């Protein structure tokens, strides 16, 4: 017998369309991969371990939504109920359909609308343990599971804070339509199945069967017609959702799968942009987690430039300069993103598009030999505006008897990162080359800088054959090697992680280890990966002084909540920025160490 009815057409068309669309997208993305990345992909797919890792992550992130669970259980459950629930409905539904249909291949709509075609009589109680009954139970349970998520989704609209979210994304039209379809699908399925079960007095599980009886009782008119209406609506909702999918945020579902695979094959975003970034853009679910992470949003009230809007812009081929340039590149959103999109890279790619045009002329930079040393110390431009830091550094190095060379004693040649932050990598490379030669000439084994901005670019762009340390790491080594003795002052100190040193450079522990040696380090509300930006970021191009001040003030409130005696940081720019507004003394870690050297302690007393 042929299991077919007209109403399955909308679904079927939708399904065909979305399958086609996904395949074509995948094809486009893989085809557009740079040759190098293609190779990575192929080799990756030949490596079982990588495939396994991909599958594991797909399971954990795309179905379970582990990251969201960590963030907020309600939020995690909501997403899981949709993803996992729907996934299981499909899988189990297919298995169930096998019972009633011998063929190996069913029409794809068959399991979806199974209850329309199959409605076996009400069974006697001892048959409860029969296979069909088991499936009926599971399927109803799964439907309930999804519906529970749906209820939460409704609540989230109103009470997003319960889900650990302050702001929610404002969506475009496609998203809204797709969302409505998605929300309708499962209630409609519930109604369709219930009415059917009610009318035929069978075929339903604990949920649909009982609800069915109730509905048939209370609703006048022919239940069979009503059921039929709901089957149509259900099919339409599914079909429309599938058709909307490629144009809405829900494209993230298939996209993310491929992205995970790409990542596990070791494919990375490229400096001047590549299809990888396009895939990342499609993998964004616009959950809006990034909006809450962004200080410009919650501290300065700038709410139109966050990652979600940047990425949408990237995906739909429009990013305004305003969006590209208004960002501190502090990396907080990147940390928070459940999809793990490299947001800062995306933003920088756009800045390169805008800013690369500039013509520079650094021909005036003339080398004269800096001399030789074991350690070359590069204070950095910003440190020249907070001289106490390099004075302390010199004091410490002298105390430790280091044979060092102060590379930029007479004013520095910029490290190049400020230019790169404006998307001017080509122009920066000139400065980088200049400094590299300078550093190489010293024949030093170690490069120490006081500026996290320099530190980051030294490590990422200079590929020097020598070790590179931020002064916090350097000093800690000196202490451990016993080159300097320190005497704790036992003052309450709170430590602020500079963006480029912490999130940007992965240096979290050294400063803390060092501070706990010379003071009573106390925690602050947001630390390490979650640390706030001071607001002075060189990444932020076009915000007003007032807006920057708001960010700083907000960060200070959080840092000083526990009433420390000193606010310690490890970046001249953070120090300068905080000092502008902080009531509490702001000091660089180097200064604190310097003052903890016994000789100095006496001197200061």
């Amino acid at each position, binding site marked *: 017998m042929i299991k077919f009815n007209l109403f399955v057409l909308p679904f079927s068309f939708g399904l065909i369309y979305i399958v086609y669309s996904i395949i074509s997208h995948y094809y486009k993305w893989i085809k557009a991969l740079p040759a190098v990345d293609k190779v990575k992909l192929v080799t990756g797919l030949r490596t079982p371990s990588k495939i396994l890792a991909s599958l594991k992550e797909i399971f954990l992130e795309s179905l379970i939504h582990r990251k969201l669970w960590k963030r907020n259980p309600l939020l995690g459950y909501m997403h899981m109920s949709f993803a996992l629930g729907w996934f299981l409905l499909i899988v189990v539904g297919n298995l169930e359909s096998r019972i009633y249909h011998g063929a190996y291949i069913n029409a794809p709509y068959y399991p979806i609308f199974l209850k329309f075609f199959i409605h076996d009589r009400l069974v006697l109680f001892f048959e409860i343990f029969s296979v069909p009954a088991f499936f009926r139970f599971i399927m109803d349970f799964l439907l309930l599971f999804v519906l529970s998520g749906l209820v939460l989704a409704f609540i989230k609209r109103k009470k997003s804070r319960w889900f650990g979210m302050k702001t929610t994304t404002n969506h475009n039209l496609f998203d809204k339509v797709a969302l409505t379809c998605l929300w309708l699908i499962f209630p409609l399925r519930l109604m369709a199945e219930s009415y059917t079960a009610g009318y035929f007095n069978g075929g339903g599980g604990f949920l649909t069967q009982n609800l069915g009886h109730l509905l048939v009782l209370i609703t006048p008119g022919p239940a069979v017609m009503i059921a039929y209406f709901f089957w149509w609506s259900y099919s339409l909702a599914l079909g429309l959702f599938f058709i909307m999918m490629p144009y809405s945020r829900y494209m993230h579902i298939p996209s993310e799968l491929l992205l995970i695979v790409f990542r596990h094959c070791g494919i990375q975003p490229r400096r001047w942009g590549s299809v990888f970034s396009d895939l990342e853009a499609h993998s964004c679910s616009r959950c809006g987690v990034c909006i809450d992470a962004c200080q410009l949003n919650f501290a300065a009230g700038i709410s139109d430039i966050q990652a979600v809007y940047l990425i949408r812009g990237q995906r739909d081929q429009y990013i305004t300069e305003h969006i590209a*340039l208004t960002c501190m590149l502090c990396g907080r959103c990147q940390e928070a993103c459940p999809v793990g999109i490299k947001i800062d890279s995306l933003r920088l790619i756009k800045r390169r598009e805008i*800013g690369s*045009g*500039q*013509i*520079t*002329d*650094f021909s*005036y*930079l*003339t080398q004269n030999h800096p001399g030789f040393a074991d350690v070359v110390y590069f204070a950095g*431009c*910003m440190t*020249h*505006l907070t001289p106490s830091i390099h004075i302390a550094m010199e004091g410490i190095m002298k105390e430790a008897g280091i044979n060092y060379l102060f590379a930029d004693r*007479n*004013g*520095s*040649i*910029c490290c190049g990162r*400020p*230019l790169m932050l*404006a998307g*001017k990598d080509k122009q920066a490379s000139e*400065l980088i080359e200049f400094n590299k030669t300078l550093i190489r000439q010293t024949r030093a084994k170690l490069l120490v800088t006081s500026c996290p901005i320099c530190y980051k670019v030294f490590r990422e762009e200079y590929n020097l054959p020598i070790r590179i340390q931020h002064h916090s790491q350097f000093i800690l080594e000196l202490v451990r090697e016993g080159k300097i003795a320190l005497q704790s002052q036992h003052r309450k100190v709170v430590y602020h992680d500079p963006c480029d040193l912490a999130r940007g450079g992965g240096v979290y522990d050294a400063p803390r280890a060092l501070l706990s040696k010379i003071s009573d380090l106390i925690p602050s509300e947001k630390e390490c990966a979650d640390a706030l930006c001071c607001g*002075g970021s*060189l990444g932020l*191009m*076009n*915000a*007003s*002084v007032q807006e920057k001040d708001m960010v700083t003030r907000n960060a200070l409130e959080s840092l000083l909540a526990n009433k420390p005696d000193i606010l310690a940081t490890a970046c001249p*720019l953070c120090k*300068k920025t905080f000092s502008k507004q902080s009531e509490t003394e702001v000091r660089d870690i180097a200064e604190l160490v310097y003052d903890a050297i016994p000789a100095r302690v006496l001197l200061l007393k």
Partner: protein
Amino acid sequence: MIDFGYTLTRDRQFDYDRGDLRYYRLVRSLEPSIDLCIGCGSCSATCSAAQFTNLNIRKLHTVIRRGDTTSIKAGLRKCMFCGKCQLVCPRGVNLRNLILALNRAIEQLG
């Protein structure tokens, strides 16, 4: 035409009425804080590039405001964009974005 052995010298006086304010208007729309300058010179004093070159960032955006755009390009190219100028500005002029805007103006207006 007769060569008398000397030629007319160009007038150093700048005629504001003949100035080209297109650069200023564009830059101002991108970075309004250009108007806040009080000519204190701390930006040019701290400028790293100014140690080695004749770049005078303070003069540079002042001449723009006067519509005198003849001499801006050469200077601007020397900027290393380090941002010290912005850190010392007592009026909160957003100099780095100002420089971006100036480059934009040069790209668009030649």
